[in-house]
């Protein structure tokens, strides 16, 4: 076999095709870079009109340990931020950065833009910007987003698109509100929320997996159904006797022993409600489930290449059902936040689009539980910042600040993420 050896020699060469920058990558580089440069230019503009001093309060009045309030000269702070931002943007556009440096440039751009913008905003007000409130508020605001995004991650990893997180939230919030009001028990409310969201998830699974309905449309319809159903029951049942049915107890912060007394970090991280701790725990649980267990391997296989899973004897339909239902558990916990996790009472459509923000977080987090959670934190931060700045009465109308998360999502989806890679079979029903 002389012919054979010649061919073998060629075959055994390491296959390494030369790489150049593709059109997509180039577009992503240019759009990301110019976005960052635009942000830098905005800051540069703001730096000329910045006020004198920006105050940052590191603790709020109720903290045991009072930390000082920092005063930062606003003009130079904004200017420095602008320069850093511009430098990062130019670096990104140049395309000469290694992947590690690119990531660093991204982090520099993000933090300097936030710091610069906050300095400018804080300097317009005599009141200090409450940093610790901002951060603990971020954690709280992000909690339902994290849980909702996790619900989506599990379902979509198995190949079922979940646009119905909003509807799951709404149903769960309603159930938690009613059951909480009747039983006066937080655990009972949480159980009710979880069960309701799992039932909603079952509806999603039924129509997506069994009846092969288009999953995006299905999600929209389920949201409509949830809004109608909770609205109808609220009007018909709850409203007339709201003292009995709409006065659930609310969760209280649980200090985690001495950890809660750590200055600055303690109140932010270790004096939160049970739901916040559950959210953090859930991120770890989902990560372990997806990447360290047999079930997770199967979920991912079914979402990437269902036929391959089928040929090794895995029931695609069963795994997808399980994933969607398990996702429902997290969506239920997230939904409970809106009633027992905040004021204790339900109002029509009180989830106001948080389910969609969770969806955005999971896409920007590239279907990874940890990244999705970080994206949820980012959205929490922006939302919280908007409401903080509202109380400082900055020159930017508060209605605009409240739009920040939505604009940030579009910017991120269009400029930073672009064509991110979803699980290959996401949204595709499996037909043998």
């Amino acid at each position, binding site marked *: 076999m002389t012919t054979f050896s010649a061919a073998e020699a060629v075959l055994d060469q390491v296959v390494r095709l030369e790489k150049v920058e593709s059109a997509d990558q180039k577009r992503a580089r240019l759009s990301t870079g110019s976005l960052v440069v635009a942000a830098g230019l905005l800051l540069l503009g703001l730096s000329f009109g910045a006020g004198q001093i920006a105050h940052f309060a590191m603790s709020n009045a109720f903290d045991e340990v009072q930390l000082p309030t920092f005063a930062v000269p606003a003009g130079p702070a904004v200017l420095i931020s602008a320069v850093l931002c511009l430098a990062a943007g130019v670096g990104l556009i140049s395309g000469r950065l290694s992947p590690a440096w690119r990531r660093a440039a991204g982090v520099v751009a993000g933090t300097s833009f936030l710091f610069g913008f906050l300095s400018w905003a804080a300097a317009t007000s005599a009141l200090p910007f409450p940093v610790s409130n901002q951060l603990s508020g971020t954690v709280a605001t992000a909690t339902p987003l994290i849980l909702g995004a996790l619900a989506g991650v599990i379902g979509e990893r198995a190949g079922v698109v979940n646009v119905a997180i909003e509807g799951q939230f709404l149903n769960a919030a309603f159930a938690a509100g009613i059951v909480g009001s009747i039983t006066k028990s937080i655990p009972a409310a949480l159980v009710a929320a979880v069960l309701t969201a799992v039932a909603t998830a079952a509806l999603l699974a039924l129509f997506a997996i069994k009846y092969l309905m288009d999953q995006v449309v299905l999600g929209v319809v389920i949201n409509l159904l949830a809004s109608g159903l909770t609205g109808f029951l609220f009007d018909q049942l709850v409203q007339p006797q709201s003292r009995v049915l709409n006065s659930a107890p609310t969760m209280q912060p649980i200090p985690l022993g001495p950890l809660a007394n750590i200055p600055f970090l303690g109140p932010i991280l270790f004096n939160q409600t049970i739901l916040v701790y559950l959210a953090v725990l859930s991120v770890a649980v989902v990560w372990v489930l997806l990447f360290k267990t047999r079930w997770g391997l199967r979920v991912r296989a079914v979402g990437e290449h269902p036929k391959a899973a089928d040929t090794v004897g895995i029931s695609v339909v069963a795994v997808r059902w399980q994933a969607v239902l398990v996702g429902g558990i997290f969506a239920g916990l997230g939904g409970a936040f809106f009633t027992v996790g905040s004021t204790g009472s339900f109002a029509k459509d009180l989830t106001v689009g948080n389910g969609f923000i969770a969806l955005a977080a999971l896409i920007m987090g590239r279907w990874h539980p940890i990244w999705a959670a970080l994206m949820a934190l980012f959205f929490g931060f922006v939302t919280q910042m908007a409401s903080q700045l509202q109380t400082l009465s900055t020159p930017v109308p508060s209605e605009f600040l409240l739009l920040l998360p939505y604009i940030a999502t579009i910017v991120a989806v269009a400029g930073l993420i*672009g064509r991110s890679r979803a699980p290959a079979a996401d949204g595709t029903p499996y037909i043998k």
Partner: protein
Amino acid sequence: MSSTTSRPAFLAYLSQYWREWAITGAAMVLALLLGAILMVVADPEVSANFAYLFTAPQLALGGAWAKVAGAYSALVAGAVGSPEALAHTSAKAAPLICAGLGVGLGFRAGLFNIGAQGQAIMGSIVAAYIGFTFQLPYGLHLLVAIIGGVAAGALWGGVVGWLKAKTGAHEVIVTIMMNYIAAGLLAWLLTTAAFMRPGRMDPISPEVQPTSALPGIYQQFHLGFLVAILAAAAVWWLLERSTTGFAIRAVGLNPNAAATAGMSVAATTTITMTFAGALAGLAGVQAALGPSANGVPVPLTVGLVGTVGFDAITVALLGRSRPLGIVLAGLLFGGLSAGGLAMQSVAQTPLTLTMVLQALVVLFVAAPALVQTLVPILKERKSKKVAMAGGEA
């Protein structure tokens, strides 16, 4: 679209599509049934009687029947029971048809336009602004206001198409966010001097000039409804008879083949979303300039367009993204909406029930297999599927 109904063609159409129609009908009946159950369960007085179901069935069943019959007869009466009701239905249907056409057009190009809501809000903002700010003669004023509103919707939709074409940003996420941005923009505008009604502190605009209102024909039956029908005809022509429509359908059904055949998927995406936005914008115009029950248009508020953009998705689905289907679905849901208001005032059943009915109808229609399981008569006797599935794919 067999709108040319010579008799044999009509029969052929009937034999081909009767099952589709029957399933749609069955879906509605099933939705009404579930709605009835919901009504009974959610009414403590009525459901309490079910404790005596075996001892005094007439009490339980009679109570339930009275409740359901009362609500549904009020619903039907409010939708089609009188000329006034019909006029009311037409007024509710007009914006639904327009926005439904916008969503349906997107579907035909393979795009999920979840953003009809935002596009309609933008349309209503601009139409109302032109309506209450400028002084123009009859006819011209209305025309300018309509064009302005449609253009605003087109812009709001076109941006999404452009972003998708240029950066690959998924239109579902972007349209959802654009909805919130439009709503926020409206909320902010209503706090500015240009939009606030003099002498009021709450977010409400002045009334639009009579010169810019859509003229009524009979009660609430107004010019806008005819505009909606015209729009449906135009969309039909666009899809079935124009080169642009050919490209839209080709891209929607197989973007790869369309690209290989020289069509620009990016351009088609942008064009489709612009048209879709324009149609949804027209729905916003209808909301801003169409006469309400008292004969004058409702001034701009945060809730002016209601949930027309989301309802439009159900309209497009039920109408199977075909213009005639969308007109019929729009009329159905318009009737549901008009009747729902009557049901609320006459039978004290909350309007939100109609939302539930709407969602249920769409769910059932989208899952014909489920309807066929529940109503076995509709099952096909023999599978006529010609074998493409065979062979070694």
